[in-house]
């Protein structure tokens, strides 16, 4: 129930940002449209195990760490890319990042996190193996790249998108 309310709230917020208005009529329209989208989405989604309110709240508590941690990754990644743009990249290459996310939503979140960070480019995804192929600017030690990315996944994302 909390999840549904949050989705409706988020979509209503997005609608109000787009129409740039907080008039009661616009808020009502936003709530109705958001409720419709959420209802259609629930009907299309496959039946999954219901999650408790406590689990949802625990996941929500991890959102600040997810957003803040991703921002830190973006800033450090940008610094590395800036260095490489002004000089030459040390040893660019492709690296498989195995294990990690297990659900499609988690894969998508991981892909967006890796993609928004300028020092990693997602090249391919192998859902069966649970692995993502990324291109990094310094791949001379692939194990270090894997360890860093897995540590980032565990620390920042696993709580919200297990």
């Amino acid at each position: 129930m909390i999840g549904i309310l949050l989705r409706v709230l988020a979509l209503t917020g997005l609608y109000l940002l787009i129409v740039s208005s907080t008039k009661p009529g616009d808020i009502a329209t936003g709530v109705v449209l958001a409720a419709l989208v959420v209802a259609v989405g629930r009907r299309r989604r496959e039946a999954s195990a219901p999650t408790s309110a406590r689990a949802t709240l625990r996941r929500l508590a991890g959102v600040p760490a997810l957003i803040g941690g991703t921002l830190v990754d973006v800033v450090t990644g940008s610094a590395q890319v800036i260095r490489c743009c002004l000089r030459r990249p040390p040893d660019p290459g492709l690296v498989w990042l195995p294990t990690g996310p297990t659900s499609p939503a988690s894969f998508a979140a991981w892909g967006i996190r890796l993609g928004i960070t300028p020092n990693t480019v997602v090249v391919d995804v192998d859902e069966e193996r649970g692995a993502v192929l990324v291109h990094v600017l310094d791949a001379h030690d692939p194990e270090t790249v894997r360890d860093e990315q897995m540590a980032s996944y565990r620390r920042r994302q696993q709580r919200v998108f297990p």
Partner: protein
Amino acid sequence: MISVVLDVVGGLLLVVGLGLMTIALVGVLRMPGTYSKLHAQSLATGPGVCCVLASSVATENAATISYAAVGIVFTVLTAPVASHAIARAARRRGAPAEPR
């Protein structure tokens, strides 16, 4: 007072955003290979665009700032997808690089 602070913050964000885009342009021209160029490109389409959009706080106009916020949200969600699509296409067309 608030107005001056917002002007300064907006100006700084604009300078940082434009600086990132300029460095990204240099990177796109200098970096070797498609994948490496994508790193430079994502510097412009990610942090660069977000900084320029965030500089709209200097306008102190709610409508402008809310449009910029929507722009940032959609940029954050779509830029990685575009970058991934280009990288995947490059791999399928045989861009040289073996996974390690």
